[in-house]
């Protein structure tokens, strides 16, 4: 089966959605990013309601859940990226939660894959998702015992210096390579390499 639909000139009809969102969820702010992309900044207590509503009107594809660490404002920004397959519009639903007490609610009942996105966000930012019982299981980082690594106050260089001491070399490998290649004369420990 072939399909030649082309969505180049579709009326996205998003203005109506914004009016409804603003009447249903007070305090929602809309920022247009480009022709087909909008950021919706919503208070954290109204986020789940808005996500449920958006899913019910066609914004049903969850691309990713991710997090941004605004350390100076002491906030974590959770971003849910929703896509609508019928009009090609993307919404970045953004909400701010307290950085010192990073607890939010799971959406895994709406989007099963969210279980893994939430585990990812928990592992790298330390945000807990109530209702996601697997949230605290390690995913990528086994036996991690430091700050969640994508937080801004985690310093990877310092971590590396502490955990992986610099190697010291007794011999100069470049000098040895030159001897093997025959550029200079000299001895290397273990004798000549055969063949």
């Amino acid at each position: 089966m072939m399909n030649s639909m082309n969505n180049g000139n579709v009326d996205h009809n998003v203005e109506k959605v914004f009016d409804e969102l603003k009447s249903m969820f007070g305090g929602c702010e809309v920022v247009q990013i480009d022709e087909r992309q909008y950021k919706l900044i919503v208070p954290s207590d109204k986020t789940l309601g808005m996500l449920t509503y958006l899913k019910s009107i066609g914004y049903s594809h969850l691309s990713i859940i991710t997090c941004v660490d605004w350390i100076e404002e002491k906030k974590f920004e959770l971003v849910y990226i929703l896509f609508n397959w019928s009009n090609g519009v993307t919404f970045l639903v953004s909400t701010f939660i307290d950085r010192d007490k990073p607890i939010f609610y799971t959406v895994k009942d709406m989007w099963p894959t969210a279980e893994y996105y939430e585990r990812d966000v928990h592992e790298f930012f330390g945000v807990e998702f109530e209702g996601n019982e697997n949230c605290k299981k390690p995913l990528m980082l086994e036996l991690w015992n430091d700050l969640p690594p994508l937080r801004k106050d985690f310093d990877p260089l310092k971590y590396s210096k502490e955990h992986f001491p610099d190697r010291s070399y007794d011999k100069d490998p470049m000098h040895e390579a030159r001897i093997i290649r025959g550029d200079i004369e000299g001895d290397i420990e273990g004798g000549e390499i055969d063949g």
Partner: protein
Amino acid sequence: MGEMKLFFGPNHPGLHGNFSVHMYVEGDTVIRARPVPGFLHRGFEKLMERRLWYQNLALIPRICVQEPDINEACYAMAIEKIAKVEVPERAQWIRMIVLELARIANHMWAFGGVGGPTGMYTSMYWSVSDRDKVLDLFEELSGARIYHMYIIPGGVRKDFPPNFEEKLVKLLDYIEGRLPEYETFILKNRILHTRLRGIATIDTETCLRIGVTGIGLRATGVPYDIRKVAPYLFYDKVEFDVPTATEGDALARISLKPQEIRQSIRIIRQVLEHMPSGPVNTKIADGNGLRIRVPKGMAYAMVESTRGEYGYLVVSDGEEKPYRVAVRGASYPQGLYGVEHLMPGTRIDDVPIWLDTMGVCAPEIDR
């Protein structure tokens, strides 16, 4: 019969990439499966926050080894959205050529990839050797075979080298001539049919529920393609079809690949007709040389990769480095949730086929 735990990881020749599955089996049937990523976690997202905007160009193609150009395109397009920069027209057409060539190369590679687990080595030899011809062209265009670093914020690095377009047309003719052979000798081969039909079947409802996109979704009969639904670059100015199948099994997914290659060839031919001459890049923001400062903002850019939706969320705080970059790998849903919930019921020897035809790519999950 007792339950036994088997480790299926990078040590197995049937698994492409550093990813593993802990399989709990009874007899030769998987009854539970647990995905274990993280073997090559190199902290790309963290590293990007510590490098200049342009320095990251050397880093990002490595997030998806087999299909690097989509990373460059997403990164560049997201920055352009934040900076509200209009990319020169010629650069956008060139980007389409690069993305479609990358698409052809990756379909070839995946087409070869299925040869290993099925024992159909002809498929591997042919497609990998033909893919190399695409890489030759990439080398001429960008100086590199795999990691091109060619698409940059603001356009592309440089214009086509002399006689590039003639070579491109010649390559397209060659690949188009090869496709009937692929279809006759490989896709109609009994080995492939016996091994792939009815294996790793997934239905539309499950795909949409868990977020599987791309060929996985289209093989269930849904013609969703981001190039059509939310056209980026000039995909709304070219004509192409979205091939679909209805079976939703491994055979359907593989059979769509040559059809997709045909559409990519069709797109590139149209691009060559439409493409005007002119500049190929523009200044993205104020700044000294490569030390640009991207204005404050957040944007998500996505492209249709061979495995589905691939996207970058880029956040800038107006400084010389990105504040945050998040990568949405195309195989994240099927690679993690899919392995845990959809793989059980598969036979052990079909597990490599499951992972291969679902397009599970470890580096984009680990990123």
